């Protein structure tokens, strides 16, 4: 049987090279090697003849064929096994013969079988000049072809005397002798040749794969050894691995030293034992592993505990270990004892705190010491100015008035100094209450009018109608606005204009924005960057002789941001500046939100209780009001009733409002409790408390938000009505 395309070659056929390719056996590569990329070293190792030699020889012997291993260029690797008698005869006779292909008996064109096999990836069968056949089988692993096996050198038909005679002539040997050797050869059927090619291909591929695996394993073992050697060499870090559950699977010498567990003691234990009990309770270990699972790694700093129960500060780095298919194999931990570093950081922090404390102490001392002489000057100046020692001439009056202005200025600076220390030590406290910016604006404007008038500056205000109350400390709101207007006056030339506006701001109108525009020299872009910084002083052509400490805008920014608002400016040099700040709108619904829940609103009504007291003697007004608020707070239920904040708008009759989620009976009870406690507080009965309550129905069938909004609006209306009534009675 002659395979298809295995045509008979004529005696004078010029080409001994590739006659045809056949591919009954394709090297079916398994998926795991499909994307394999082999290093140069791996290629050399894979085709190591020491491994291949014996296998090929056994194969050749068993099948009585010649076998050789070549690289991709067809160069022989190691020895070739060739028992073919014709080849031996030619080989012995022609000692200077170098055929290129170890199996080609030809002096004509070189054999291209290996090159073709490498190129096509399929087995290539060739006949040589003597009529002998061999097969070149490519050796591939993954995408790469590593070399080839050449096998065969058998006649696939009876030798032809004519062809042999030409060979004898080419190689200078006896044609008779050649014929005698050749005619003893039994031709091998093409099918058999094909089958042995298949077999060899399969064998070669299998061997290659097995060898690849073996090499990898060997290398892995080497790497592991190297890693272990490295890991054990590192003594200042604890290195260990864990499986997915946190059970320790390896433990280096550094870990032994740091955590005082030997490898034998810790293997198979959960690594949470290196955390102190309180952290185990807080599930710190689990949390960190979960984080590592989510993001691939986790970094943690905290207390760790040795087997000896000694604690130390550790910085722990957890890396997730994943297998080739993305399966999670476990975690690698690198741990460092950073107790010393932590101690240093604590010392540094403490020294910074100490510096802050010293600075605060110094500034509050300075502020205190400045106040004492300031007070004496204040009393002397005001006494003389108010005519305690007799009338003054207009000139004397004017000059003393200016002296008093300077005292006030000095007093403000001293206050600013104290505020700065409060900013630094986070002690800047705000007394929030619903605050009218209209009122704040008019108060500040009337205070600033004198300074503005001195420079003939037109100072005007424009507040939007129905501006809501803001949730702010009124004294601080005044301070912010005063700072901005003072600044504007300072930098606006004579006869300029300053206008103050207040209007709604924000998408939901949940802020009020106040702006202060001046017709001054404007502020350059670079100064705009730094103007809110501490001690920022911008010289801008205006009168800067009385520029204060440069703390005003810095404090203003702190105050605004502490209120939850924002401060910024628009300006072009030569075109004036506008400073803006926002403060959050006071929302009754939000203020009462904690009592406006399902059960409380479910009763169908809430009650607004108003407590009116007459402002009386004994201490300052603000202090009495605060005392009364404390008494009222004690008379209500925290989760059910709420005392509304004062607006500071009270006249001689001060009203306190309580929103109570209760029925008329409940509100009467609250009222009697309040009366009793106020009478206890005010033995002289000067407060003359009067209690009234209004029932506000909760609408049904709306969403909770709508219900709350509506109830809040009704409460606000009732509050307004009560205050208006009070106004009328006065």
């Amino acid at each position: 049987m002659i395979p298809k395309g295995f045509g008979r070659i004529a005696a004078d056929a010029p080409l001994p090279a590739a006659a045809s390719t056949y591919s009954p056996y394709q090297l079916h590569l398994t998926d795991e090697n499909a994307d394999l990329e082999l290093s140069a070293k791996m290629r050399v190792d894979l085709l190591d003849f020491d491994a291949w030699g014996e296998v090929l020889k056994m194969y050749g012997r068993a099948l009585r064929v010649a076998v050789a291993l070549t690289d991709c260029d067809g160069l022989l690797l190691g020895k070739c096994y060739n028992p073919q008698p014709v080849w031996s005869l030619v080989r012995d006779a022609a000692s200077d013969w170098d055929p290129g292909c170890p199996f080609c008996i030809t002096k004509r064109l070189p054999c291209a079988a290996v090159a073709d096999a490498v190129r096509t990836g399929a087995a290539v069968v060739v006949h040589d000049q003597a009529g002998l056949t061999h097969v070149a089988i490519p050796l591939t692993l993954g995408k790469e072809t590593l070399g080839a096996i050449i096998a065969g050198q058998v006649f696939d038909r009876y030798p032809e005397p004519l062809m042999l005679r030409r060979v004898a002539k080419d190689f200078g040997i006896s044609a008779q002798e050649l014929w005698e050797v050749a005619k003893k050869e039994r031709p091998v059927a093409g099918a058999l040749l094909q089958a042995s090619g298949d077999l060899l291909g399969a064998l070669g591929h299998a061997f290659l794969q097995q060898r690849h695996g073996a090499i990898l394993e060997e290398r892995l073992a080497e790497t592991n050894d190297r890693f272990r050697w490295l890991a054990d060499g590192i003594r200042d870090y604890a290195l260990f691995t864990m499986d997915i559950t946190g059970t320790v699977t390896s433990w280096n010498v550094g870990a032994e030293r740091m955590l005082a567990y030997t490898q034998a003691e810790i293997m198979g234990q959960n690594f949470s034992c290196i955390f102190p009990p309180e952290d185990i309770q807080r599930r710190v270990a689990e949390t960190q592993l979960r984080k590592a699972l989510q993001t691939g790694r986790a970094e943690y700093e905290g207390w760790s505990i040795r087997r000896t129960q000694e604690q130390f500060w550790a910085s722990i780095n957890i890396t997730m270990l994943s297998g080739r298919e993305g399966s999670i194999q476990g975690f690698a931990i690198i741990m460092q004892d950073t107790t010393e570093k932590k101690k240093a950081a604590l010392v540094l922090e403490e020294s910074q705190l100490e510096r802050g404390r010293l600075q605060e102490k110094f500034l509050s001392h300075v502020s205190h010491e400045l106040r004492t002489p300031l007070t004496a000057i204040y009393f002397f100046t005001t006494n003389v100015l108010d005519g305690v020692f007799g009338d003054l001439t207009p000139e004397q009056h004017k000059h003393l008035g200016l002296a008093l202005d300077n005292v006030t200025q000095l007093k403000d600076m001293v206050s600013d100094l104290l505020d700065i220390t409060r900013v630094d030590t986070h002690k800047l406290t705000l007394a929030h209450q619903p605050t009218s910016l209209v009122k704040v604006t008019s108060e500040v404007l009337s205070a600033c009018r004198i300074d503005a008038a001195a420079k003939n500056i037109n100072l005007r205000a424009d507040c939007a109608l129905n501006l809501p109350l803001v949730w702010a400390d009124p004294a601080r709101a005044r301070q912010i606005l005063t700072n901005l207007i003072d600044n504007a006056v300072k930098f606006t030339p004579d006869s300029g204009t300053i206008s103050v506006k207040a209007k709604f701001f924000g998408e939901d109108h949940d802020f009020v924005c106040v702006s202060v525009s001046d017709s001054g020299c404007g502020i350059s872009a670079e100064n705009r960057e730094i103007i809110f910084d501490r001690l920022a002083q911008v010289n801008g052509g205006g009168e800067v002789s009385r520029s204060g400490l440069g703390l005003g805008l810095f404090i203003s920014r702190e105050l605004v941001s502490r209120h939850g608002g924002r401060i910024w400016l628009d300006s072009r040099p030569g075109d004036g500046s506008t400073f803006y700040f926002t403060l959050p709108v006071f929302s009754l619904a939000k203020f009462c939100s904690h009592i406006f829940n399902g059960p409380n609103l479910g009763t169908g009504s809430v009650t607004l209780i108003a407590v009116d007291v007459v402002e009386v003697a004994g201490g300052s007004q603000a202090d009495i009001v605060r005392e009364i608020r404390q008494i009222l707070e004690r008379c209500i239920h925290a989760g059910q009733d709420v005392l509304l904040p004062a607006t500071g708008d009270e006249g001689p009759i001060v009203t306190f409002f309580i929103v109570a989620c209760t029925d008329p009976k409940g509100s009467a009870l609250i009222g009697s409790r309040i009366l009793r406690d106020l009478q206890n507080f005010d033995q002289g009965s000067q407060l003359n408390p009067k209690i009234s309550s209004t029932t506000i129905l909760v609408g049904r069938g709306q969403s909770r938000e709508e219900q709350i909004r509506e109830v809040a609006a009704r409460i606000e209306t009732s509050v307004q009505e009560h205050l208006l009534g009070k106004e009328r009675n006065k």
Partner: protein
Amino acid sequence: MTQTKDSTAQGPDLTTEKKILIIDDDDHLLLGLTARLKTNGYAVVWASDAVTAISMARKEAPDLIILDLGLPAGNGFLVLDRMRALSDLVAIPVIVLSARDPADNKRRSLDAGAAAYFQKPPDNHEFLMAIRRALGETVALSTFLKT
């Protein structure tokens, strides 16, 4: 005539003139504040340290005390505490007038029994209003509204 003479002879009405004890170690403050208080019809006595403060208070039996917190031989809180412990002084209203930061000292002063806290320098008008209220003097509503 007699009536006129009598009334002149009587001078200021000593029975209604209230006496204020200022406890402060700053002579200039004492001078300035005393002038202001006298103009407003109060008699003024002084003490400059925490120890004489108590003996002065017992001796003079003032109607009101203006107390500084930073004092030689003790501090204002000590004075407040001792006054609360002495039956003849416990009822005398005290107004604290201190250079100290009210954020730290106001609450403490009020808890210790002070009627009001003012930081130096106080506003003259507010300060006098507080004195009058602490003395239980009726403050005309018109005066109040003016502030």
